[in-house]
């Protein structure tokens, strides 16, 4: 039997936060929630409080100077988690404005301690702690006793078995603020503004004894409260690919042949081509073929008017619930948010086929602050999706440049396991389409450039053009063979 202390971890009730914290909030910890005005500190505190407080484990919320309590109650009520019945029952508000105004930290501490002793709360919140700091500075005493105050508060709250949150603002990260040393946890909220876009980010700068997820995590505030988009957990033991790999039919028999028998399951496939070359049609056919074989799928559409770009087959599949639609037109998306939307839809439908249509739209949907890291983001998305065991088809708009052979505008071709490229060519005053399989990882595939056309039944793949050369340049010429001369 282990004689080490067991630290209970509290479920915060904030979606995604427990994952970011590395498994919940350590009980009896002394935490600081910091960040600039309007970044959601008070909301975060309230959401955790309403989730955690029970009559047996009540919460005390000390309001100090700053946001007037009337207003705080008025605005916090707008969130779904706010429950009036909990007030004065499992949740108690205590106003310390008068004590703080006097600037006597000893008196503030005494008030807090006496309330804590009276109510024995399991959770204590002090909002906003900055007011306490400021009040202490108005004292004539130049050696203000803030460090001592924080030290004592931290010690008292922990021995009183209360999980404590100080809510503060304006702290600079490099500050040698005594709170940083005493606190067990530092939750930093930020608002990143770039051009017209604003993205909320959260960072766990410190959480003693916890394997927190490093870095900035995006979150949103909606009427349901705060939702943190934790990165999708990577499955450390990815299911080994079966040999021979099971292959998925694409819905176009000739294309299956070209791919060497279909798309290996769990592969990511990039379909690159110019506008109007039939990428979306191929994607819809891919999903429809899955449904025909009893599979389900998910499509993420990043277009301004998704309903207008859908073809009838796809619309019917979505209507019938065989294909899930991820159509987030929320502004300023982050990669983790999109991955989470996709994974929850995949999970809901037990989907095996996923389509992202298109990467160009996806890039536009991302908040500008993430666009610089687009390749990285894409790589994480592909890893998360294929890690979930699904096969992914992504379309990519390709500007037709006849002088160079490119497969994606992002230099992302290496991220995918398979690539199909589509191009326009000019032959005898007609605009024809050709298609080729460029890559299928660990598999034999066709090297043919095949003509294809689009009709009411989808893609129809035709023959090669053996008597033409220079197809990839867009303006092929007739081969001059010995036969022609003879």
């Amino acid at each position, binding site marked *: 039997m282990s004689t080490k202390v067991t630290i209970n971890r509290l479920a915060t009730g904030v979606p995604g936060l427990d994952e970011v914290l590395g498994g919940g909030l350590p009980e009896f910890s002394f935490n600081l929630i910091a960040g600039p005005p309007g970044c959601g500190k008070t909301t975060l505190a309230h959401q955790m409080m309403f989730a955690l407080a029970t009559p047996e484990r009540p919460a005390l919320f000390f309001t100090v100077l700053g946001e*007037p309590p009337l207003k705080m109650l008025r605005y916090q*009520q707008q969130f779904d988690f706010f429950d*009036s*019945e909990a*007030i004065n029952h499992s949740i108690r508000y205590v106003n310390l*404005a008068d004590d703080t105004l006097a600037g006597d930290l000893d008196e503030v501490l005494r008030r807090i301690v006496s309330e804590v002793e009276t109510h024995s709360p399991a959770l204590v919140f002090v909002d906003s702690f900055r007011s306490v700091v400021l009040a202490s500075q108005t004292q004539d005493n130049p050696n203000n006793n803030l460090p001592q105050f924080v030290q004592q508060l931290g010690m008292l709250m922990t021995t009183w078995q209360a999980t404590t949150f100080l809510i503060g603002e304006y702290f600079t990260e490099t500050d040698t603020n005594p709170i940083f040393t005493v606190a067990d946890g530092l939750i930093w909220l930020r608002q990143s503004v770039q051009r017209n876009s604003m993205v909320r980010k959260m960072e766990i700068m410190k959480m003693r004894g916890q394997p927190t997820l490093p870095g900035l995590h995006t979150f949103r505030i909606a009427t349901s409260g705060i939702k943190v988009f934790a990165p999708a957990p990577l499955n450390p033991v990815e299911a080994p690919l079966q040999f021979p790999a099971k292959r998925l039919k694409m819905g176009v028999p000739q294309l299956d042949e070209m791919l060497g028998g279909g798309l290996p399951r769990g592969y990511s496939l990039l379909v690159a081509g110019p506008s109007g070359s039939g990428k979306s049609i191929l994607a819809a056919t891919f999903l429809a073929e899955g449904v025909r074989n009893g599979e389900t799928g998910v499509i993420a559409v990043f277009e301004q008017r998704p309903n207008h770009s859908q073809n009838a087959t796809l619309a019917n599949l979505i209507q019938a619930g065989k294909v899930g639609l991820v159509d987030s037109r929320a502004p300023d998306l982050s990669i983790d948010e999109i991955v989470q939307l996709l994974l929850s839809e995949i999970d809901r439908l037990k989907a095996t086929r996923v389509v992202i249509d298109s990467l160009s739209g996806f890039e536009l949907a991302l908040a500008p602050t993430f666009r610089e890291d687009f390749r990285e983001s894409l790589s994480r998305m592909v890893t998360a999706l294929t890690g979930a065991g699904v096969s992914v088809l992504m379309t990519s708009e390709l500007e037709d440049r006849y002088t160079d052979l490119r497969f994606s505008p992002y230099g992302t071709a290496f991220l995918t396991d398979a690539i199909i490229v589509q191009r326009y060519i000019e032959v005898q005053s007609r605009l024809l389409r050709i298609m080729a399989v460029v890559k299928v990882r660990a598999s034999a595939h066709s090297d043919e450039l095949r003509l294809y056309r689009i009709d009411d039944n989808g893609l129809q793949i035709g023959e090669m053009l053996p008597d033409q050369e220079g197809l990839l340049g867009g303006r092929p010429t007739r081969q001059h063979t010995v036969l022609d001369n003879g």
Partner: protein
Amino acid sequence: MYYRVLTIRYQFAMTAQSEESRQIVASLAHRVGPNADIARIAQALVTTLQDMGAALTPIIGQQGVVALYRRSIHLCASNHPRLAGTYDSVQSTLDLIALKSVLVEQSEADALFFGEVLLTTFYELLTTLIGPSLTARLLRDVWGPSLSDTPSQEISP
């Protein structure tokens, strides 16, 4: 005299008919008791205000309560010009001793009407700020105990 009280009651009932105002009026009446002399009315109103203050001060602070009280007085005066004189004389601070001394100079009917309007206005003001359910939750104990021992009308055969 009694007729006049009834008339005022009637007027008041026409202006505020919510369940909460009925509860507030009933609570005040219960605190006043059967012998409604002016001293008891004044005392009942003052203790009700004290109880409301006691319920709200820990949450919104002393200053918050005073601000709500002043706003209530102001709203009462503009909605009921007939009593404006009375409201004017109790304005400014939450001085309940001063309030009491003003009240005892009124007729019983006026004092009761004044009290009912003031409490209802205060309640409705708080409702506009933090919503009906939270207001009811915070002030439940102010009306609660006095009403719990009055026979419920629903139980009538």
